[in-house]
Protein backbone atom coordinates (compact mmCIF):
# COMPACT_ATOMS: atom_id res chain seq x y z
CA UNK A 1 0.00 0.00 0.00
CA UNK A 2 1.39 3.42 -0.87
CA UNK A 3 0.14 6.98 -0.73
CA UNK A 4 -1.31 8.36 -3.95
CA UNK A 5 0.19 11.73 -4.78
CA UNK A 6 -1.75 14.72 -6.06
CA UNK A 7 0.09 14.49 -9.37
CA UNK A 8 -1.24 11.00 -9.97
CA UNK A 9 -4.86 11.93 -9.37
CA UNK A 10 -4.92 15.03 -11.58
CA UNK A 11 -6.88 14.64 -14.78
CA UNK A 12 -4.78 14.18 -17.89
CA UNK A 13 -4.99 17.14 -20.22
CA UNK A 14 -3.16 15.55 -23.12
CA UNK A 15 -4.53 13.20 -25.74
CA UNK A 16 -1.34 11.19 -26.25
CA UNK A 17 1.46 10.17 -23.92
CA UNK A 18 3.84 10.25 -26.89
CA UNK A 19 3.09 12.44 -29.89
CA UNK A 20 5.71 12.76 -32.61
CA UNK A 21 5.19 14.59 -35.90
CA UNK A 22 7.85 14.38 -38.58
CA UNK A 23 10.40 13.65 -35.86
CA UNK A 24 14.05 13.68 -36.91
CA UNK A 25 16.87 12.59 -34.60
CA UNK A 26 20.55 12.43 -35.37
CA UNK A 27 22.85 9.60 -34.34
CA UNK A 28 26.24 11.13 -34.98
CA UNK A 29 25.96 12.77 -38.42
CA UNK A 30 23.40 10.36 -39.74
CA UNK A 31 19.64 10.95 -39.36
CA UNK A 32 18.67 7.68 -37.69
CA UNK A 33 15.06 8.78 -37.17
CA UNK A 34 13.83 10.60 -40.24
CA UNK A 35 10.29 11.93 -40.40
CA UNK A 36 8.61 9.62 -37.90
CA UNK A 37 4.95 10.17 -37.01
CA UNK A 38 3.82 8.33 -33.90
CA UNK A 39 0.98 8.62 -31.40
CA UNK A 40 0.87 6.37 -28.35
CA UNK A 41 -1.40 6.32 -25.35
CA UNK A 42 -1.69 4.23 -22.16
CA UNK A 43 -0.86 0.55 -22.62
CA UNK A 44 2.08 -1.65 -23.52
CA UNK A 45 3.50 -0.89 -26.95
CA UNK A 46 6.08 -3.07 -28.62
CA UNK A 47 8.62 -1.34 -30.84
CA UNK A 48 9.85 -3.72 -33.52
CA UNK A 49 12.22 -3.24 -36.40
CA UNK A 50 15.32 -4.69 -38.03
CA UNK A 51 18.81 -3.77 -36.80
CA UNK A 52 19.68 -0.19 -37.67
CA UNK A 53 16.02 0.82 -38.00
CA UNK A 54 16.58 3.66 -35.52
CA UNK A 55 14.90 2.01 -32.53
CA UNK A 56 17.57 2.93 -29.98
CA UNK A 57 17.94 6.48 -31.32
CA UNK A 58 14.17 6.89 -31.12
CA UNK A 59 14.17 5.59 -27.54
CA UNK A 60 16.95 8.04 -26.63
CA UNK A 61 15.02 10.93 -28.10
CA UNK A 62 11.86 9.88 -26.24
CA UNK A 63 13.91 9.63 -23.03
CA UNK A 64 15.00 13.28 -23.65
CA UNK A 65 18.64 12.21 -23.83
CA UNK A 66 18.97 13.33 -27.46
CA UNK A 67 17.44 16.54 -28.72
CA UNK A 68 15.29 16.18 -31.86
CA UNK A 69 16.96 17.57 -34.97
CA UNK A 70 13.62 18.41 -36.54
CA UNK A 71 9.87 17.87 -36.31
CA UNK A 72 7.76 18.06 -33.19
CA UNK A 73 7.80 15.84 -30.11
CA UNK A 74 5.33 16.14 -27.25
CA UNK A 75 5.63 13.87 -24.19
CA UNK A 76 2.72 13.77 -21.70
CA UNK A 77 1.51 17.10 -23.05
CA UNK A 78 4.88 18.84 -22.64
CA UNK A 79 6.65 19.95 -25.82
CA UNK A 80 10.20 18.59 -25.86
CA UNK A 81 12.35 20.85 -27.99
CA UNK A 82 15.68 22.61 -27.54
CA UNK A 83 14.50 25.26 -25.12
CA UNK A 84 11.75 23.58 -23.08
CA UNK A 85 12.17 22.80 -19.39
CA UNK A 86 12.51 19.03 -19.35
CA UNK A 87 12.31 18.50 -15.61
CA UNK A 88 8.51 17.95 -15.31
CA UNK A 89 8.67 15.28 -18.03
CA UNK A 90 11.81 13.68 -16.66
CA UNK A 91 10.24 13.30 -13.21
CA UNK A 92 7.52 11.05 -14.65
CA UNK A 93 9.82 9.17 -16.97
CA UNK A 94 11.38 5.74 -16.58
CA UNK A 95 14.14 4.70 -18.94
CA UNK A 96 16.21 1.56 -19.35
CA UNK A 97 18.94 2.12 -21.96
CA UNK A 98 20.11 -0.68 -24.22
CA UNK A 99 23.59 -0.73 -22.72
CA UNK A 100 23.13 0.48 -19.23
CA UNK A 101 26.23 1.46 -17.34
CA UNK A 102 26.28 1.22 -13.58
CA UNK A 103 28.59 1.72 -10.65
CA UNK A 104 29.87 -1.77 -9.81
CA UNK A 105 30.38 -1.04 -6.12
CA UNK A 106 26.80 0.04 -5.49
CA UNK A 107 24.37 -2.48 -4.04
CA UNK A 108 21.05 -2.96 -5.86
CA UNK A 109 19.32 -0.95 -3.15
CA UNK A 110 21.86 1.88 -3.28
CA UNK A 111 21.70 1.99 -7.08
CA UNK A 112 17.91 2.10 -7.28
CA UNK A 113 17.86 4.60 -4.39
CA UNK A 114 20.44 6.79 -6.14
CA UNK A 115 18.32 6.83 -9.30
CA UNK A 116 15.19 7.63 -7.25
CA UNK A 117 17.09 10.51 -5.69
CA UNK A 118 18.20 11.77 -9.12
CA UNK A 119 14.56 11.57 -10.23
CA UNK A 120 13.81 14.05 -7.44
CA UNK A 121 11.39 11.82 -5.55
CA UNK A 122 10.39 13.00 -2.06
CA UNK A 123 13.15 11.81 0.29
CA UNK A 124 10.82 10.21 2.83
CA UNK A 125 9.27 7.93 0.22
CA UNK A 126 12.48 6.66 -1.37
CA UNK A 127 13.27 3.60 0.83
CA UNK A 128 9.73 2.24 0.45
CA UNK A 129 9.65 2.94 -3.29
CA UNK A 130 13.03 1.22 -3.72
CA UNK A 131 11.87 -1.84 -1.80
CA UNK A 132 8.70 -2.01 -3.88
CA UNK A 133 10.54 -1.69 -7.19
CA UNK A 134 13.09 -4.33 -6.20
CA UNK A 135 10.24 -6.64 -5.12
CA UNK A 136 8.37 -6.15 -8.38
CA UNK A 137 11.31 -7.31 -10.47
CA UNK A 138 11.93 -10.26 -8.14
CA UNK A 139 15.31 -9.12 -6.82
CA UNK A 140 14.34 -8.84 -3.14
CA UNK A 141 16.73 -11.60 -2.13
CA UNK A 142 19.64 -9.80 -3.85
CA UNK A 143 18.75 -6.28 -2.71
CA UNK A 144 21.94 -5.86 -0.71
CA UNK A 145 24.31 -7.56 -3.15
CA UNK A 146 26.80 -5.41 -5.02
CA UNK A 147 26.02 -4.89 -8.71
CA UNK A 148 29.34 -6.39 -9.80
CA UNK A 149 28.36 -9.73 -8.24
CA UNK A 150 25.10 -10.02 -10.23
CA UNK A 151 24.51 -12.09 -13.36
CA UNK A 152 23.44 -10.46 -16.63
CA UNK A 153 19.77 -11.24 -16.12
CA UNK A 154 19.83 -9.88 -12.56
CA UNK A 155 21.52 -6.67 -13.76
CA UNK A 156 18.84 -6.27 -16.38
CA UNK A 157 16.21 -6.63 -13.65
CA UNK A 158 18.03 -4.08 -11.47
CA UNK A 159 17.85 -1.80 -14.51
CA UNK A 160 14.12 -2.36 -14.80
CA UNK A 161 13.77 -1.65 -11.06
CA UNK A 162 15.45 1.75 -11.41
CA UNK A 163 13.19 2.55 -14.37
CA UNK A 164 9.97 1.83 -12.47
CA UNK A 165 11.00 3.17 -9.06
CA UNK A 166 9.25 6.51 -9.57
CA UNK A 167 6.01 4.94 -10.91
CA UNK A 168 6.56 6.57 -14.30
CA UNK A 169 3.71 7.59 -16.55
CA UNK A 170 5.99 7.06 -19.51
CA UNK A 171 8.21 3.99 -19.34
CA UNK A 172 10.80 3.31 -22.05
CA UNK A 173 12.52 -0.06 -21.99
CA UNK A 174 15.21 -0.74 -24.59
CA UNK A 175 15.76 -4.51 -24.98
CA UNK A 176 14.62 -5.34 -21.43
CA UNK A 177 14.49 -9.12 -21.93
CA UNK A 178 18.14 -9.58 -22.97
CA UNK A 179 19.74 -12.07 -20.60
CA UNK A 180 16.51 -13.12 -18.88
CA UNK A 181 15.83 -16.85 -18.70
CA UNK A 182 12.46 -18.17 -19.98
CA UNK A 183 10.81 -18.14 -16.55
CA UNK A 184 11.97 -14.60 -15.82
CA UNK A 185 10.66 -13.52 -19.20
CA UNK A 186 7.22 -14.85 -18.27
CA UNK A 187 7.35 -12.92 -14.99
CA UNK A 188 8.48 -9.86 -16.89
CA UNK A 189 5.53 -10.07 -19.28
CA UNK A 190 3.24 -10.21 -16.24
CA UNK A 191 4.94 -7.08 -14.85
CA UNK A 192 4.55 -5.34 -18.22
CA UNK A 193 0.81 -6.00 -18.32
CA UNK A 194 0.55 -4.65 -14.78
CA UNK A 195 2.54 -1.50 -15.62
CA UNK A 196 0.58 -0.91 -18.81
CA UNK A 197 -2.75 -0.52 -17.03
CA UNK A 198 -2.06 3.08 -16.06
CA UNK A 199 1.07 4.21 -17.86
CA UNK A 200 2.40 4.29 -21.39
CA UNK A 201 5.04 1.59 -21.75
CA UNK A 202 7.18 1.39 -24.89
CA UNK A 203 9.28 -1.76 -25.17
CA UNK A 204 11.90 -1.89 -27.89
CA UNK A 205 12.86 -5.44 -28.71
CA UNK A 206 13.91 -7.75 -31.49
CA UNK A 207 11.97 -10.66 -29.97
CA UNK A 208 8.66 -10.72 -31.82
CA UNK A 209 7.41 -13.34 -29.33
CA UNK A 210 7.64 -10.94 -26.36
CA UNK A 211 5.64 -8.36 -28.25
CA UNK A 212 2.94 -10.81 -29.32
CA UNK A 213 2.55 -12.07 -25.74
CA UNK A 214 2.67 -8.93 -23.62
CA UNK A 215 1.84 -5.93 -25.77
CA UNK A 216 -1.51 -4.33 -26.55
CA UNK A 217 -0.11 -2.56 -29.57
CA UNK A 218 2.75 -3.08 -32.03
CA UNK A 219 4.79 -0.31 -33.63
CA UNK A 220 7.00 -1.31 -36.55
CA UNK A 221 9.77 1.02 -37.73
CA UNK A 222 12.27 0.74 -40.55
CA UNK A 223 14.89 3.23 -41.74
CA UNK A 224 13.75 5.79 -39.22
CA UNK A 225 10.10 5.84 -40.26
CA UNK A 226 6.90 4.32 -38.95
CA UNK A 227 5.98 1.35 -41.13
CA UNK A 228 3.00 -0.12 -39.40
CA UNK A 229 1.00 0.21 -36.16
CA UNK A 230 -1.70 -2.12 -34.91
CA UNK A 231 -2.62 -4.86 -32.46
CA UNK A 232 -0.62 -8.12 -32.15
CA UNK A 233 -3.63 -10.07 -33.49
CA UNK A 234 -3.74 -7.99 -36.67
CA UNK A 235 0.04 -8.38 -37.00
CA UNK A 236 -0.32 -12.15 -36.80
CA UNK A 237 -3.05 -12.07 -39.44
CA UNK A 238 -0.78 -10.29 -41.94
CA UNK A 239 1.40 -13.27 -42.69
CA UNK A 240 0.76 -16.68 -44.22
CA UNK A 241 2.78 -19.88 -44.50
CA UNK A 242 4.82 -18.40 -47.35
CA UNK A 243 6.56 -15.87 -45.10
CA UNK A 244 9.64 -16.41 -42.98
CA UNK A 245 9.10 -17.08 -39.28
CA UNK A 246 8.18 -19.77 -36.75
CA UNK A 247 5.00 -18.21 -35.36
CA UNK A 248 2.08 -16.23 -36.80
CA UNK A 249 3.44 -12.98 -35.27
CA UNK A 250 6.89 -13.55 -36.82
CA UNK A 251 5.37 -14.34 -40.20
CA UNK A 252 3.21 -11.20 -39.96
CA UNK A 253 6.29 -9.18 -39.09
CA UNK A 254 8.28 -10.38 -42.08
CA UNK A 255 5.25 -9.99 -44.38
CA UNK A 256 4.82 -6.32 -43.44
CA UNK A 257 8.55 -5.59 -43.74
CA UNK A 258 8.78 -7.30 -47.13
CA UNK A 259 5.74 -5.44 -48.40
CA UNK A 260 7.12 -2.13 -47.13
CA UNK A 261 10.48 -2.73 -48.80
CA UNK A 262 8.82 -3.70 -52.05
CA UNK A 263 6.83 -0.45 -52.01
CA UNK A 264 9.92 1.56 -51.11
CA UNK A 265 11.92 -0.02 -53.92
CA UNK A 266 9.43 0.95 -56.56
Amino acid at each position, binding site marked *: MRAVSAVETTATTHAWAIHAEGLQVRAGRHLAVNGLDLTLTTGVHGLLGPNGAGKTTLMRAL*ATVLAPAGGRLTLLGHPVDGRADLR*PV*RRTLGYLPQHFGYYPRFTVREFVGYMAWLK*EMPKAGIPAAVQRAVDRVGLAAKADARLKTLSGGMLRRAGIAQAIVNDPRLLLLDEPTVGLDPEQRLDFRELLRDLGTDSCVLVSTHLVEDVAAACTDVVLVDEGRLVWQGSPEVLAAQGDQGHAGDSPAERGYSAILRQHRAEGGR
Partner: protein
Amino acid sequence: MTTHPTLAQIGRYATGDPTLDEPSVWTIEVHLEECADCRARLAGSTTADTRTTLDRVAAVLDREIAATPMPAGRSRSWSALGNRWLVGTLLPWLGMTAGVLACAALLGVLWTGLPELVLLIAPLAPLPGVAVAWHRRVDPAWELIAATPAAGLTTLLRRTAAVLAFVIPALALVGAGTGTSLALMLLPCLAFTAATLLLGTLVGVHRAAIGLIAIWTLAVIAPSLATARIPVLLAGESTPTWALVTVLLTAVALLRINAFRRLSQHD
Protein backbone atom coordinates in the same frame (compact mmCIF):
# COMPACT_ATOMS: atom_id res chain seq x y z
CA MET B 1 -13.37 13.26 15.63
CA THR B 2 -16.66 11.53 14.85
CA THR B 3 -19.01 10.57 17.71
CA HIS B 4 -18.28 7.33 19.53
CA PRO B 5 -20.48 4.44 18.41
CA THR B 6 -22.42 2.70 21.18
CA LEU B 7 -21.15 -0.56 22.62
CA ALA B 8 -24.14 -2.32 20.99
CA GLN B 9 -23.10 -0.98 17.57
CA ILE B 10 -19.51 -2.09 18.11
CA GLY B 11 -20.79 -5.50 19.15
CA ARG B 12 -22.85 -5.81 15.97
CA TYR B 13 -19.87 -4.64 13.92
CA ALA B 14 -17.59 -7.19 15.60
CA THR B 15 -19.93 -10.10 14.95
CA GLY B 16 -20.47 -9.03 11.34
CA ASP B 17 -24.19 -8.51 11.84
CA PRO B 18 -25.79 -8.51 8.34
CA THR B 19 -28.53 -6.05 9.44
CA LEU B 20 -25.92 -3.32 10.00
CA ASP B 21 -26.13 -1.23 6.82
CA GLU B 22 -23.06 -0.19 4.83
CA PRO B 23 -22.96 3.53 5.73
CA SER B 24 -23.02 2.59 9.44
CA VAL B 25 -20.11 0.18 8.89
CA TRP B 26 -18.13 2.95 7.17
CA THR B 27 -18.89 5.38 9.98
CA ILE B 28 -17.70 2.89 12.58
CA GLU B 29 -14.55 2.06 10.60
CA VAL B 30 -13.60 5.71 10.10
CA HIS B 31 -14.08 6.27 13.82
CA LEU B 32 -12.12 3.16 14.80
CA GLU B 33 -9.13 4.32 12.75
CA GLU B 34 -8.69 7.36 14.95
CA CYS B 35 -10.03 6.25 18.37
CA ALA B 36 -7.91 3.90 20.48
CA ASP B 37 -10.60 3.55 23.19
CA CYS B 38 -13.17 2.23 20.74
CA ARG B 39 -10.58 -0.11 19.22
CA ALA B 40 -10.07 -1.52 22.73
CA ARG B 41 -13.84 -1.97 23.08
CA LEU B 42 -13.92 -3.68 19.70
CA ALA B 43 -11.18 -6.07 20.85
CA GLY B 44 -13.34 -6.95 23.82
CA SER B 45 -16.37 -7.69 21.63
CA THR B 46 -14.65 -10.01 19.14
CA THR B 47 -15.90 -13.53 18.73
CA ALA B 48 -13.80 -16.67 19.05
CA ASP B 49 -14.01 -17.12 15.27
CA THR B 50 -12.49 -13.69 14.60
CA ARG B 51 -9.74 -14.30 17.13
CA THR B 52 -8.67 -17.55 15.47
CA THR B 53 -8.64 -15.79 12.07
CA LEU B 54 -6.52 -12.97 13.48
CA ASP B 55 -4.11 -15.45 15.07
CA ARG B 56 -3.76 -17.28 11.79
CA VAL B 57 -3.09 -14.04 9.85
CA ALA B 58 -0.55 -12.96 12.47
CA ALA B 59 1.25 -16.31 12.22
CA VAL B 60 1.38 -16.10 8.39
CA LEU B 61 2.62 -12.49 8.50
CA ASP B 62 5.31 -13.36 11.06
CA ARG B 63 6.49 -16.21 8.87
CA GLU B 64 6.63 -13.96 5.76
CA ILE B 65 8.42 -11.18 7.59
CA ALA B 66 11.00 -13.67 8.86
CA ALA B 67 11.48 -15.06 5.34
CA THR B 68 11.97 -11.75 3.50
CA PRO B 69 15.07 -9.57 3.97
CA MET B 70 14.83 -6.56 6.24
CA PRO B 71 13.99 -3.32 4.45
CA ALA B 72 16.80 -0.80 4.81
CA GLY B 73 14.56 1.71 6.52
CA ARG B 74 15.70 5.28 6.74
CA SER B 75 19.25 4.76 7.89
CA ARG B 76 21.61 6.68 5.66
CA SER B 77 25.11 5.36 5.74
CA TRP B 78 28.17 7.40 4.92
CA SER B 79 28.77 5.30 1.85
CA ALA B 80 25.39 6.29 0.38
CA LEU B 81 26.14 9.96 1.00
CA GLY B 82 29.56 9.56 -0.58
CA ASN B 83 28.07 7.73 -3.55
CA ARG B 84 25.66 10.54 -4.23
CA TRP B 85 28.01 13.49 -3.95
CA LEU B 86 31.31 12.05 -4.94
CA VAL B 87 30.71 9.49 -7.60
CA GLY B 88 33.51 6.93 -7.51
CA THR B 89 34.73 7.89 -10.97
CA LEU B 90 35.95 11.23 -9.60
CA LEU B 91 38.21 9.75 -6.95
CA PRO B 92 41.19 8.78 -9.15
CA TRP B 93 41.23 12.26 -10.68
CA LEU B 94 41.10 13.95 -7.32
CA GLY B 95 43.93 11.69 -6.19
CA MET B 96 45.95 12.77 -9.21
CA THR B 97 45.29 16.44 -8.46
CA ALA B 98 46.48 15.99 -4.89
CA GLY B 99 49.58 14.17 -6.14
CA VAL B 100 50.48 16.93 -8.63
CA LEU B 101 50.01 19.61 -5.96
CA ALA B 102 52.20 17.70 -3.52
CA CYS B 103 54.92 17.27 -6.17
CA ALA B 104 54.81 20.98 -6.98
CA ALA B 105 55.15 21.88 -3.30
CA LEU B 106 58.06 19.46 -2.92
CA LEU B 107 59.83 20.86 -6.01
CA GLY B 108 59.32 24.38 -4.68
CA VAL B 109 61.05 23.38 -1.45
CA LEU B 110 63.90 21.47 -3.07
CA TRP B 111 64.61 23.73 -6.03
CA THR B 112 64.88 27.29 -4.83
CA GLY B 113 65.66 28.80 -8.24
CA LEU B 114 62.17 28.11 -9.56
CA PRO B 115 59.17 30.43 -9.26
CA GLU B 116 56.47 29.07 -7.02
CA LEU B 117 55.03 26.13 -8.87
CA VAL B 118 52.05 25.66 -6.60
CA LEU B 119 50.89 29.20 -7.29
CA LEU B 120 51.30 28.66 -11.03
CA ILE B 121 49.26 25.48 -11.22
CA ALA B 122 46.68 26.42 -8.57
CA PRO B 123 44.20 27.83 -11.13
CA LEU B 124 44.22 24.52 -13.01
CA ALA B 125 43.83 22.25 -9.99
CA PRO B 126 40.02 21.77 -10.13
CA LEU B 127 39.80 21.46 -13.91
CA PRO B 128 40.53 17.73 -14.40
CA GLY B 129 37.88 16.89 -11.80
CA VAL B 130 35.34 19.29 -13.34
CA ALA B 131 36.01 17.91 -16.81
CA VAL B 132 35.47 14.36 -15.60
CA ALA B 133 32.33 15.32 -13.69
CA TRP B 134 30.44 15.86 -16.92
CA HIS B 135 31.83 13.51 -19.47
CA ARG B 136 29.89 10.62 -20.90
CA ARG B 137 32.84 8.30 -21.44
CA VAL B 138 33.95 8.57 -17.84
CA ASP B 139 30.60 8.13 -16.10
CA PRO B 140 29.34 4.61 -16.85
CA ALA B 141 25.75 5.52 -15.96
CA TRP B 142 25.64 8.71 -18.04
CA GLU B 143 22.74 7.58 -20.17
CA LEU B 144 20.66 6.73 -17.11
CA ILE B 145 21.52 10.02 -15.44
CA ALA B 146 20.93 12.04 -18.61
CA ALA B 147 17.25 11.06 -18.56
CA THR B 148 16.64 12.18 -14.95
CA PRO B 149 15.43 15.63 -13.88
CA ALA B 150 18.62 16.13 -11.85
CA ALA B 151 20.70 15.75 -15.02
CA GLY B 152 22.48 18.70 -16.45
CA LEU B 153 23.21 21.68 -14.30
CA THR B 154 22.20 20.17 -10.96
CA THR B 155 24.49 17.19 -11.36
CA LEU B 156 27.29 19.27 -12.87
CA LEU B 157 27.23 21.87 -10.10
CA ARG B 158 26.92 19.20 -7.42
CA ARG B 159 29.96 17.38 -8.72
CA THR B 160 31.88 20.63 -9.27
CA ALA B 161 31.12 21.55 -5.67
CA ALA B 162 32.40 18.15 -4.59
CA VAL B 163 35.62 18.73 -6.55
CA LEU B 164 36.08 22.21 -5.08
CA ALA B 165 35.36 20.94 -1.58
CA PHE B 166 38.35 18.66 -2.06
CA VAL B 167 40.67 20.96 -4.03
CA ILE B 168 40.30 24.10 -1.91
CA PRO B 169 41.44 22.52 1.39
CA ALA B 170 44.25 20.78 -0.49
CA LEU B 171 45.41 24.12 -1.95
CA ALA B 172 45.08 25.84 1.39
CA LEU B 173 47.16 23.13 3.00
CA VAL B 174 49.91 23.33 0.38
CA GLY B 175 49.72 27.13 0.30
CA ALA B 176 50.09 27.44 4.06
CA GLY B 177 53.42 25.63 3.81
CA THR B 178 54.80 27.96 1.13
CA GLY B 179 53.56 31.17 2.67
CA THR B 180 51.88 32.66 -0.43
CA SER B 181 48.66 34.67 -0.27
CA LEU B 182 45.71 32.32 0.10
CA ALA B 183 43.43 34.61 -1.92
CA LEU B 184 45.83 34.44 -4.87
CA MET B 185 45.66 30.65 -4.72
CA LEU B 186 41.90 30.29 -4.45
CA LEU B 187 40.44 33.14 -6.52
CA PRO B 188 42.08 32.09 -9.83
CA CYS B 189 41.04 28.54 -9.11
CA LEU B 190 37.38 29.59 -8.71
CA ALA B 191 37.62 31.87 -11.76
CA PHE B 192 38.91 29.00 -13.88
CA THR B 193 36.13 26.72 -12.64
CA ALA B 194 33.49 29.29 -13.64
CA ALA B 195 35.23 29.85 -16.97
CA THR B 196 35.20 26.11 -17.67
CA LEU B 197 31.47 25.91 -17.01
CA LEU B 198 30.82 28.97 -19.18
CA LEU B 199 32.96 27.75 -22.06
CA GLY B 200 31.42 24.32 -21.50
CA THR B 201 28.03 25.64 -22.58
CA LEU B 202 29.56 26.31 -25.99
CA VAL B 203 32.02 23.50 -26.68
CA GLY B 204 31.41 20.97 -23.88
CA VAL B 205 32.94 20.97 -20.41
CA HIS B 206 35.62 18.45 -21.31
CA ARG B 207 37.01 20.48 -24.21
CA ALA B 208 36.69 23.71 -22.28
CA ALA B 209 38.82 22.27 -19.46
CA ILE B 210 41.47 20.96 -21.86
CA GLY B 211 41.55 24.28 -23.73
CA LEU B 212 41.94 26.36 -20.58
CA ILE B 213 44.66 24.07 -19.24
CA ALA B 214 46.55 24.39 -22.54
CA ILE B 215 46.18 28.18 -22.74
CA TRP B 216 47.29 28.73 -19.14
CA THR B 217 50.24 26.37 -19.54
CA LEU B 218 51.45 28.04 -22.73
CA ALA B 219 50.70 31.65 -21.84
CA VAL B 220 51.64 31.75 -18.16
CA ILE B 221 53.37 28.66 -16.81
CA ALA B 222 55.92 28.20 -19.62
CA PRO B 223 57.07 31.87 -19.78
CA SER B 224 57.39 32.15 -16.02
CA LEU B 225 59.39 28.93 -15.87
CA ALA B 226 61.62 30.28 -18.66
CA THR B 227 62.17 33.65 -16.97
CA ALA B 228 62.07 32.18 -13.44
CA ARG B 229 59.72 34.97 -12.33
CA ILE B 230 56.14 35.05 -11.08
CA PRO B 231 54.02 36.77 -13.74
CA VAL B 232 52.24 40.00 -13.00
CA LEU B 233 48.93 38.09 -13.26
CA LEU B 234 49.72 36.32 -10.02
CA ALA B 235 51.29 39.20 -8.15
CA GLY B 236 49.68 40.47 -4.96
CA GLU B 237 48.09 43.57 -6.52
CA SER B 238 45.99 41.56 -9.01
CA THR B 239 43.80 39.99 -6.27
CA PRO B 240 40.88 42.47 -6.80
CA THR B 241 40.93 41.77 -10.54
CA TRP B 242 40.72 38.05 -9.92
CA ALA B 243 37.81 38.58 -7.50
CA LEU B 244 35.96 40.70 -10.07
CA VAL B 245 36.60 38.18 -12.85
CA THR B 246 35.39 35.32 -10.64
CA VAL B 247 32.12 37.09 -9.83
CA LEU B 248 31.52 38.10 -13.46
CA LEU B 249 32.25 34.65 -14.87
CA THR B 250 30.05 32.96 -12.29
CA ALA B 251 27.17 35.33 -13.05
CA VAL B 252 27.42 34.82 -16.82
CA ALA B 253 27.78 31.05 -16.38
CA LEU B 254 24.58 30.98 -14.30
CA LEU B 255 22.75 32.93 -17.00
CA ARG B 256 23.65 30.30 -19.54
CA ILE B 257 22.54 27.30 -17.48
CA ASN B 258 19.94 26.18 -20.03
CA ALA B 259 22.67 24.76 -22.21
CA PHE B 260 23.21 21.96 -19.70
CA ARG B 261 19.70 20.52 -19.87
CA ARG B 262 20.75 17.86 -22.30
CA LEU B 263 23.96 16.15 -23.08
CA SER B 264 25.19 17.95 -26.14
CA GLN B 265 26.87 16.28 -29.09
CA HIS B 266 30.37 17.19 -27.93
CA ASP B 267 30.17 15.88 -24.38
